């Protein structure tokens, strides 16, 4: 959890708005440090967290969270964290075995045309289970869904439309019905300017998700190239809330990721410059 980012977003583990859909995107840069931030943030806020880790192993997330002061293994044990390790689950589908049936959650791998229904059902069951609390179990706050990352689904053959359906269903369940939060990461490779048009599924996905989200964090590399003291810039974009009457607001920060955190500063105010 990065306190500087919390103050930018004017939020904290004790007081955060519910029903938010936060979209994290990156372009020629790596925004996964924000996923780690939100994971530790919501675990500290005592939310019930459902994490779809599609790109890394559990031990990877666990090692990073350890540095940020949160133990994923403990959270899992206490029932606060539900973790889907996509890499592990996929192997039983990609290497079909007669004896082992494999789980249903990654059904889309067998036939991408089916869509992400089974994955949504996994999310639904894991966030809803928090509502009906059993006796004696610890009580957790509103449910939170984290996805790292959606672009992998495109590489595995799922269409952008199916991913948008998935996120919409999740938003309806998690954000609207249960008043929880949702954080999703999507990555784009190409330049923003170039319009390939036809098969750029990730661009279409990004546009669709930006339309759905309530807060967008857009991470980019520096346009001037690599710099040791500034790792890139984050564009924070609040979308207009109903009744608020305020226009969409944008702010741009530069950031540097440290060993145990990240610092955010206004453009040109890096300690290396001043």
């Amino acid at each position, binding site marked *: 959890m990065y306190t500087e980012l919390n103050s930018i977003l004017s939020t904290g583990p004790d007081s955060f708005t519910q029903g938010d859909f936060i979209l994290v995107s990156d372009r020629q840069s790596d925004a996964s440090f924000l996923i780690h931030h939100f994971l530790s943030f919501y675990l500290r806020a005592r939310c019930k967290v459902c994490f779809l880790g599609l790109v*890394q*192993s*559990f*031990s*990877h997330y*666990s*090692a990073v969270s350890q540095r940020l002061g949160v133990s994923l*293994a403990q959270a899992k*044990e206490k029932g606060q964290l539900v973790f889907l*390790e996509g*890499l*592990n689950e*996929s*192997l039983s*589908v*990609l*290497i*079909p075995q*007669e004896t082992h049936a494999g789980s249903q959650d990654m059904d889309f*791998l*067998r*036939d*991408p045309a089916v869509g992400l229904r089974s994955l949504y059902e996994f999310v639904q069951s894991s966030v809803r289970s928090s509502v009906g609390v059993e006796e004696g179990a610890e009580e957790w706050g509103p449910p939170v869904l984290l996805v790292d990352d959606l*672009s*992998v689904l*495109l*590489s*595995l*053959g799922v269409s952008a439309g199916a991913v948008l359906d998935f996120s919409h269903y999740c938003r309806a369940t998690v954000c609207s019905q249960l008043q929880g939060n949702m954080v999703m990461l999507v*990555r784009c*490779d190409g330049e923003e300017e170039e319009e390939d048009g036809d*098969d750029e*599924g*990730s661009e279409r996905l990004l546009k669709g998700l930006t339309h759905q989200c309530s807060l967008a964090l857009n991470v980019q590399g520096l346009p001037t190239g690599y710099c040791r003291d500034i790792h890139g810039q984050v564009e924070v974009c609040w979308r207009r809330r109903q009744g608020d009457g305020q226009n969409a607001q944008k702010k741009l920060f530069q950031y540097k990721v440290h060993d145990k955190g990240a610092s955010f500063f206004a453009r040109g105010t890096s300690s290396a410059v001043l």
Partner: protein
Amino acid sequence: MMAAPVESVCKPSAERSPFSATSFQKKSRSKLISIPGTRPSVQNGQLLVSTGVTSLDFLLGGGLAVGTVLLIEEDRYDSYSRMILKYFLAEGVVCRHELFVAAAQDNPDDILQELPAPILDDVAIHKPAEQPRLPCETHDSLDSMMIAWRYQNLPKVQSALASSSRFGHYYDVSKTMEPEIRQAAKCHRFYLPEHPTESSTTRSPVLKSYSALLRSLQEVIHREGFDVAASMAPLAAEHRCGAKNVLGFLGGSHIGSLSDRLSSRSPPEFENTTQDISTSLKYFKSSYSSISKSRNILRIGLHSLGSALWDDDLSCHDNPTHRHSLTAFLYGLRALLRSSLSVAVVTVPSHLIQWGLLLTLCFSVTRYDSGL
């Protein structure tokens, strides 16, 4: 009179010496494993291996992290990319790592025969020329050292280990590696024409050829005991937490691979309840140490994936039917690698392919352009 103060000075210092010896011990992290030819990253402590090209290691930030994939986009004539692949494999041979070579076009044996010869100044390959000569030989004085003469009697042989455990080597591309060095390395081969793709009824999202390759890789990783990396972290945590968590740990599904390995040998221990925790913990510890003794790295070289010879039509059609087969394969490869002590270099003839989302799945991508 003089003897007494000297003695009184010497005695406490002699008593103190064990303490001073311990307090100045080199601080080292015990959980880092030492395998020849690897080193921990300066930045994050990840275990790195060399690609065989020292300058490429530098570009990658010290080396190739174990458990990752390096994807190399082939140049048009596959000359430079093939060389990178051979350097990677040759480095594995020199470091005594195990190899896995898969190809569809050339036989893996042919690729292995082309490995470049290492330039090893201090290697101990016992050649007859290096046998100790008799001192009475007259021509011996001619090539004896003139300046650093005091080093000439030092043994030349004992540095064999140092050489194979060193990180990164230099190679002479104009020569091929000598067969006896090459054959010392354990190598697993996958040559696609030798694997007839059976028409199975089980539906798989990837091509039969890729599926067969994944299965073969998984077999090697399980059989040769490379699949320990995933269980290392929970194991270390479990040792710290003590016996309370052992039951949950043993019953937990998250250790997957290791518990599969162990349960095949001793199923009853996993069904036991509280009274047997200590025995199973002991068993666990012993198996842990037995695994850690034989740890090695598996280097995986996959040549020209995505070409037509792998049954892939990515490079043949504008609108291929198996559009996502290669990416799904890479996803599976990543899954296999992340839970094992292995590292892969994959070359892909990307200039033939309408390039899509492939890049996002790999650790890093190197483009080689022959400039022709």
